[in-house]
Structures are given as structure tokens and as C-alpha cells.
């Protein structure tokens, strides 16, 4: 970009800006960055899953969930479908901007945002009606720990998508090259949040 002045060589004038870095890998910085960040995030879930394992398998003798606890599996299943659907709308948004379709991008982002927000509200509603709190036994703690950690990630993902939407409505992003990374990178994160929910749902509600 700005490296044009470099070609002047031994510069009679000092050029303002660093030389363009050599790209030594096929993957671009932003995508690699978010993938590594996702590894970190997965490991954070790993810490809570480890705790879940110890509480459920090592420290717990009786039935699981312990007597007196019941989880609304069907509500959570519907909620899972909502979140999975949001991954598809996210993909639609990205494919639209790759094809230069701004309208599709906006519609995709907004529907993803709405589906994600719906998921979060159903989750909060579930907390209100579930009948136990994080203080009720280790089961309550780890249930709220895992689903709450995931809820926080949904919130972060929604924030990133909201930023992408703001920029999309202001006319940023285009079909070529790196111009749609601002949609792609939050999109990768959103897919991670989605996949993580399927794992959390399977472990906490189903198994």
C-alpha cells in the first residue's frame, strides 16, 4: 500500500511508514489470529469442562443430575436449533459480500443478530424459571458456570457482529480481497460459539 515510496531506494526524503511486511504464509494475519484465539477460548471451556468432569464423575456418587434438579431439555433443544440456524444466516451474509451483494450482507447480519439475541433471551428466561441457583450444590455451580460462560461468549459474539453490522450499514466492506475480513473474522468466531453450544448442550443437557 504505502510501500510505494520505498522503491525510491536510498531516499532523498525520509519515507513515512514501515515497509510492507513479507507475507510468509498463505493464511492472513486476522484469520490466523482469530483461529488461535479460538484455541484459547476452547481451552477456557476446557477448564470448566474439567471441573464438570470432576464434579460429576469423581465427587458425585448418586444420580446425575442429582435429585431435585431437572433441566428443561426440550426448551434448550429448540434454543440449540435457533443458534444453529444463526450460523447459516452468518454464512449467507459472508457469501453475499463475497459476491458483492450488500443487501444480502445486511440482511444476513441482522438476522444473525436477531437469532443470537433470541437465544440469549431464551437462555436468561430459562435461568429465571429453572428453579435452582448457582449456589445450590456443585451441580448448580457448574451448570451456571458452563452455560454462563457460553452465554458470555454469545454476548461477545453479538458485540462483534453488531460492530460488523454498523460498518456494513455505513457502507464498508466489498467483494474483493481483504475487504470482507471484517465480516469473515467475527463470522468464524460466531461459528465457534455455535459449535461450542452444541458441545455444551450435549454434555450438560443430554448426556
Amino acid at each position, binding site marked *: 500500500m504505502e510501500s510505494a515510496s520505498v522503491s525510491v531506494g536510498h531516499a532523498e526524503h525520509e519515507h513515512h511508514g514501515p515497509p510492507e511486511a513479507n*507475507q*510468509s504464509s498463505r493464511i492472513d494475519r486476522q484469520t490466523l489470529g482469530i483461529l488461535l484465539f479460538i484455541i484459547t477460548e476452547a481451552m477456557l471451556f476446557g477448564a470448566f469442562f474439567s471441573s464438570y468432569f470432576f464434579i460429576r464423575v*469423581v465427587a458425585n456418587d448418586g444420580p446425575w443430575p442429582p435429585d431435585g434438579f431437572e433441566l428443561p431439555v426440550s426448551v434448550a433443544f429448540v434454543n440449540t436449533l435457533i443458534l444453529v440456524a444463526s450460523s447459516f444466516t452468518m454464512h449467507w451474509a459472508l457469501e453475499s459480500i463475497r459476491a458483492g451483494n450488500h443487501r444480502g450482507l445486511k440482511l444476513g447480519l441482522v438476522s444473525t443478530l436477531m437469532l443470537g439475541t433470541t437465544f440469549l433471551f431464551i437462555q436468561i428466561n430459562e435461568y429465571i424459571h429453572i428453579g435452582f441457583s448457582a449456589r445450590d450444590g456443585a451441580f448448580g455451580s457448574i451448570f451456571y458456570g458452563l452455560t454462563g460462560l457460553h452465554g458470555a461468549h454469545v454476548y461477545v459474539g453479538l458485540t462483534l457482529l453488531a460492530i460488523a453490522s454498523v460498518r456494513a450499514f455505513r457502507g464498508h466492506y466489498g467483494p474483493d480481497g481483504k475487504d470482507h475480513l471484517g465480516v469473515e473474522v467475527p463470522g468464524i468466531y460466531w461459528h465457534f460459539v455455535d459449535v461450542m453450544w452444541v458441545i455444551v448442550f450435549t454434555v450438560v443437557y443430554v448426556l
Partner: protein
Amino acid sequence: MRAALTQPGWWRALFFTVIAGAFGFGLVIGLRAISGLDLFQTEQTGYPHIVVPAITAPLGFLVGIGCFDYWFRWASGAPTQPEDHSWHGATSWKDYFQVNTDHKVIGIQYIVTTFFFFFVGGLIAMMMRAELAQPGTQIVDPATFNGLFSTHAALMIFVFVIPVFAGIANYVLPLMIGAPDMAFPRLNALSFWMLPVAGVLFLCSYIVPGGAFDAGWTGYAPLSTGAPLGQSFFNLGVQFAGASSVATALNFLVTIITMRAPGMNFWRMPLLVWANLSTSLLVVAATPFIAGVQFMVLFDRLLHTNFFQAAYGGDVISYQHIFWFYSHPAVYIMMLPGFGIVSEVISTHSRKPIFGYRLMALALLGIVVLSYSVWAHHMFVAGMFSWLRVPMMITTLLIAVPTGIKIFSWLGTLFYGKIHLKSTSMLFALGFIVTFTIGGISGVMLGMIPLDIHVSDTYFIVAHIHFVLFGGSVFTIFAGIYHWFPKITGRMYDEKLGRIHFYLTLAGMLGTFVPMHWIGMEGMPRRVADYAAEFGGWNLEISIASFILGAAQLVFLYNMIVSWRFGPKAPSNPWRAKTIEWQVSSPPPIFNFDEIPRVVGGPYEYGVPGARHVIMPGESSELREPERSGVGAPT
């Protein structure tokens, strides 16, 4: 005044810190008022009206100082100028107290900040040794002593050893691989500014009710879940330090993978780059575990969850498992970058190619993989599953193999080399090989279950950890600081003072930590303010030696400050090294290079006729010296 509060800087940071702290305070009080609870909850582990502001105020500080300005502009959809370098480079000392996106400035910020905490942690150690000089309690009471050793370890580990390596690498690594900066300069700035926050949080625990956190740097539950308020500051400080090191590690990985100069393939990377690649892999995948487990402790303390409350179905031992999932890899996070530094120093100052370069790199990766499989050797006496002991012993002993490969390769590099014994960095590297090997051997001893059970929680453990962390990490840190001092400051340091520093440090270190093995074997417990009178003699000797060790660091401090200010100007390549950072001026130009250099060979080809590592812009690609290998060949 209005400008001061809208421009990024210390005034705005102060303003936002107060605002955010007040917001956190108001939030807690307001929610408690709505819920009909007492406004102030002051039972031992509670104090939400202090803990929550302790979260929000640092975030306010980070926003105020300016770490997020660009991102906020970007998020609002306003036009941004990604190549705007107005926050780049430092022209006066004041620029080091601002948010700066230049990796060289950030490197210096890191190194100076971490050394500040090194000296604070060292002073705390001196206080402990003063107390331990005689049996009985003279200077501090046992409760204070618990706070002292906990803060000493927390400061040294989380805000000195781990980040100082990040600081050195921050300065050197982009230059070494021919990159103009790190991959994410603004994230890099944020990583740095989270660090003083962590250190200040640790130190703030001294002024809150109940005193400093005193459950050790390990903070085992249930001791930590029932400890006074200070423990929450430990939980929070670890979060900031951890976030800082994850962000830096991510940055290093992306930089190393995507921004190497043309021609620098993986087998031409200097070993410091390899070392930071391996370390960063460890940080990215392991650090979240300590973040997670400290969150759980904080929840148990503040929200009265039951993650570690056995009476309510929680599992106490799970704390130790999850903690060591991180903290065993963490000992390699604290060592691998040092391995990289030592490889650079030894090769350069003995004028020989690294012996077994590829195996050195692979050994690093081997350590990365193995380090995830040894965590439970810290828990042989914790009452964990007994079947896990023997597998953990075997993997622990296995990890000595890649480490041994590295030791032998350094010795192989030194063998028949032209060793510069007057060079301080070389002395520290040589001292490191000796002391780290001793620490490594006591580590293998500790891997053996029977011996570990015998010496658990004795001074043998203290001796071991200080041989690997002081004799290991800190020696490599000094080697690195002396090695790159001319590059970083543009001045030469005083070698004579450097040698005095080294010999005093070595003597003090051996005098302090060698006898700890013996009194540990005989059963003197660690983490106590008072001890049986029979250990009095050795403890007095240890205290005297530790004061020598402490005083020696003042020589270092004097040498660094005076040389930085008044030292003779350094040439660009005082050690005649081959790697790229030495081919640019000292200190390097603001954007590192006018044009990205081209790498044409390995980084350590000392004494190999005709070998070159790099062709700098403007240099001819012809060989600098005529080929010497073919004596009879026509020229």
C-alpha cells in the same frame, strides 16, 4: 483541562479509573439495595463493593490511557487510517509513559516495568530472609510472612519472569525475522498495559482488610476460597497477567508464521524465534486453564458457588488438577524463551554454529508436547487417584530427554569454540548451563514418587524451584539483557561491572539455594516464619548469602542506568553476530528497515567460509569476502 480529558493519556486514565471504579461501586450497592440486602457485605471473603471496582477501575484505566481508542473509532464505523503511524516510536522518555504501538518501545516498556516488579519482589524476599535468619519470629509475624512469600512468588512469576521474556522477544523478534513490527501492534500495546495493572493489583492486596493474599502463589482451594479479601486481588491480578500473556503469545505466533522475511523458512529461523514459537503455543493453549480456575475460586468466594466445596458436591482436588494443567506448562513458559536466548548468546560468543540446530528446535517442540502430560507430579501427596502417579512419574522423567538434548547441544556448541569469557552475557549463559542442570537433576529426583513424598513441602522444593527459576530463567534473562543492551539502548555497558554482577550473583545464588537442599532433606518445611532451632546455622548462612545476592542486583541496576545514560556509543554489531537485528543500526531505525531484507542461509554459520544469513537492502548479493574454501582454486 477539557483536552486533557478527551486525549488519551494519564489525566484521562485517572479520570476514567475513578469513574469506572465509582460505577462498579455504585452497581454493587445499587443491586444490593434493590435486592433488599445489606449494602456492605463484609464477611471474610466477600467485599463485593471492593472487588467489583477492582475489576472495573483497571478497565477504565486501560480505556483512559488510550488502548482502545482506535478500536472504538473502528467499531463506530468511522473511517480509520490503518497505516497511521502517529503513535509509533519514542522521541523522549515521556513517550514511554504513553500508549505506543512500536514493538521496540513496547519491548522497553515491558523490560523496565518487569524489572521494577523484580526489584519489589526481591525486596520482599530480603524481608523474608531477614525474618528467617534466626529461629523464632523477630521481624514479621507468621500471618504477614504468609503474605510475603505469596506476593513474592506471584510478582516474580506473573509480572516478572513470564512477561520479561515477552518484552525481550518483543524488541528482538520482529527484527530477527525481518518484520517491520508485530502483526497486531495495537493488541501489543494493550498486552503491555495490562501488565502494570496486574502487578498493582497484587500489591494493592497489602492495603485491604485482612492483608495480602497468603495462600501461596498456587492459591490452593479450600485455603483460597476461605481466605481474606486479598485473595480476590490475586484472582484478578492473574486474570490481567494471563490476558496479557495470551494476547502477546497470539501476536508472536501470527508474527512468526505470517511475517518472516523472504527466504526465512522454518529451518532458518534463529532459535530465539523457535523458542518463542514454542512458548507461545504453550501460552495460548494452557493459560486459559488458570484463568478458568481463578474465576471459579472468585465465584466460590464472592457468589458462594460450590465448585470446590466438598460438603455441597464440589471437588477440592479438581482445583489442583486444573491449576497444574496450566502451571506445569507454565514452568516451560518461564524457561523455553531462556533456552532461545542462551542459544543465541552461546553461539555468538563462542563463534561456532549451534550444534544440532534442528534437534534443538525439535526438542523445544518435544518439551511443548510433553509438558501437557506431567501436571499431576505436583500432586503425589494431594490424595488424587493413585493410578495416575506412575504414568506421571514416567512422563516427568521423559521430559528430561529433550531438555538433556538441549544441554548437550550447548556443550557441543562450546566444544572447541572460541569462548569469550570476558563477555557478561556469555558468563551468564555458562552459569545458566551449570545451575540449570543442577536444578534439572533435582527435578528428575522430584519426579520419583518416593523421594517426592519425602521432601514434599520442604525447602528441597524451594531449592529446586529457585535453581530452575533463578539459576535457569533469571540467568538467561540477564544474559539476554546484556546481550541486546547495545542494540536496545545504542550504548555499551560496563563489562567489568557486568562481570562483578555475574560473579556476585553466582556466589550469592549458590550460597542461598544449595544449603536449602540439605535442610529440606532433613525436613525443614517451606512457607513457615519459624522453624526448629537445629536449622538455625544454615538459615543464617542462607540469609547472608541472599543479601549478597540482593546487593549484587544493585550493581546491575547501577550499570544499566549509568551505561544507558553515559555509556560509549555502541556500533551496530558489537558481537559480530549474524542474525538480522545486528545488521541494522543501534538502536534500530524507527521502522526497522527501509526495505525487507532477504534471508539466504542459516543464522549461526560462524566460521563457515562464504556462508551468509541475510542480504540487507542495498547490499550486493555478492559474497562479502572471497571464497576461502578452495585454496588452489583460481580466483
